[in-house]
């Protein structure tokens, strides 16, 4: 964002940039501490709550040094963290409830990612470019939606075991036969439940790319291209890995000879 503002002739002093980067880092640690505290394996550890609070206080101190008393910024900040807190509470309700998890719920829960906007919002406020905020929010929302879909896909079995209900789990239903679909889709048809999830992720990715273009965030071009390439290659990576793991697992369960062929490496030839 600083690069994008520089293109407009708006310089951000290095000291300010350092503080904004500090907000990004400390804010991330704040969210991680909260997330670990909410995680089923560590609930009840008060140290994490204290750590999260301390990190947030440090973030706020840095933010004040960047935006001062800007009413529009702090109003926005309050809105973001209110939505963030509501989303945390809603996550617990979703996990414990029985209501089907649909796209709308998935997107509502993504409010947990809204604090990611805060550092760049501070730069926009300082630069007098507040009108770019909706595009920035769209960029962050769509990027995190694409990430979350892939995370939910790779966490499919773990989420099912832990009873963590997700949109992906609801859409896919279970992993029975999913490996066949993955192999099929990567080799020929391009259809199936895994491919449908990847298509959804690509759709969010395209939204994020559109927002980046509208923002003239040219610094994000390489990142966006790399991400698209990885999303498009996900099925191929998955099927290669699946075949490799499958063959290796067969080898570990081998009952007897011939052993000579087992010296060869498994995988595609």
């Amino acid at each position: 964002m600083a690069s994008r503002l520089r293109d407009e002739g708006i310089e951000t002093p290095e000291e300010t940039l350092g503080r904004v980067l500090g907000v990004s880092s400390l804010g991330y640690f704040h969210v991680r501490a909260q997330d670990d505290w909410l995680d089923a394996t560590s609930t009840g550890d008060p140290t994490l709550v204290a750590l999260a609070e301390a990190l947030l206080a440090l973030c706020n101190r840095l933010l004040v040094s960047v935006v001062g008393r800007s009413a529009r910024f702090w109003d926005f900040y309050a809105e973001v963290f209110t939505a963030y807190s509501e989303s945390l509470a809603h996550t617990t309700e979703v996990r414990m409830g029985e209501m089907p998890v649909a796209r709308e719920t998935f997107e509502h829960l993504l409010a947990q990612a809204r604090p990611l906007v805060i550092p760049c919002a501070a730069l926009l406020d300082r630069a007098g470019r507040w009108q770019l905020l909706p595009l920035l929010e769209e960029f962050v929302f769509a990027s995190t939606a694409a990430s979350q879909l892939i995370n939910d896909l790779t966490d499919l079995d773990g989420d099912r075991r832990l009873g963590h209900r997700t949109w992906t789990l609801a859409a896919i239903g279970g992993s029975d036969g999913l490996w066949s679909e993955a192999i099929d889709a990567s080799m020929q048809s391009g259809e199936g439940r895994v491919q449908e999830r990847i298509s959804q992720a690509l759709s969010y990715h395209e939204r994020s790319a559109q927002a980046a273009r509208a923002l003239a965030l040219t610094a994000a071009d390489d990142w966006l291209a790399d991400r698209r390439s990885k999303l498009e290659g996900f099925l191929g990576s998955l099927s290669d890995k699946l075949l490799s793991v499958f063959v290796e697992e067969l080898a570990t369960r081998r009952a007897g000879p011939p052993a000579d062929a087992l010296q060869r490496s498994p995988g595609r030839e």
Partner: protein
Amino acid sequence: MRTMTSPNAPYLPKIPGSVVARAIQDTDFAVSLLQASTRPAALSDPDLGLTPAQQAELHTVLGEIAGLSFEAAMLAIKNEGVNDFR
């Protein structure tokens, strides 16, 4: 490369060496073992020397291993950060 074999994995019988060797040498054969629809035909190849009873048992066992492999492959992608979506 890690495998998903663990103390918590379900008990599964051993796989005949002829099947393992062929799966290692022949990717198409390995793919046909992964997929339930093509597995019976692959297992019935006379070169493997499997009885109908062995084929039937292996069909079920390989389905179990395919499911576990899928889970392990997903985890490997996540843990290796191949797609960097964390």
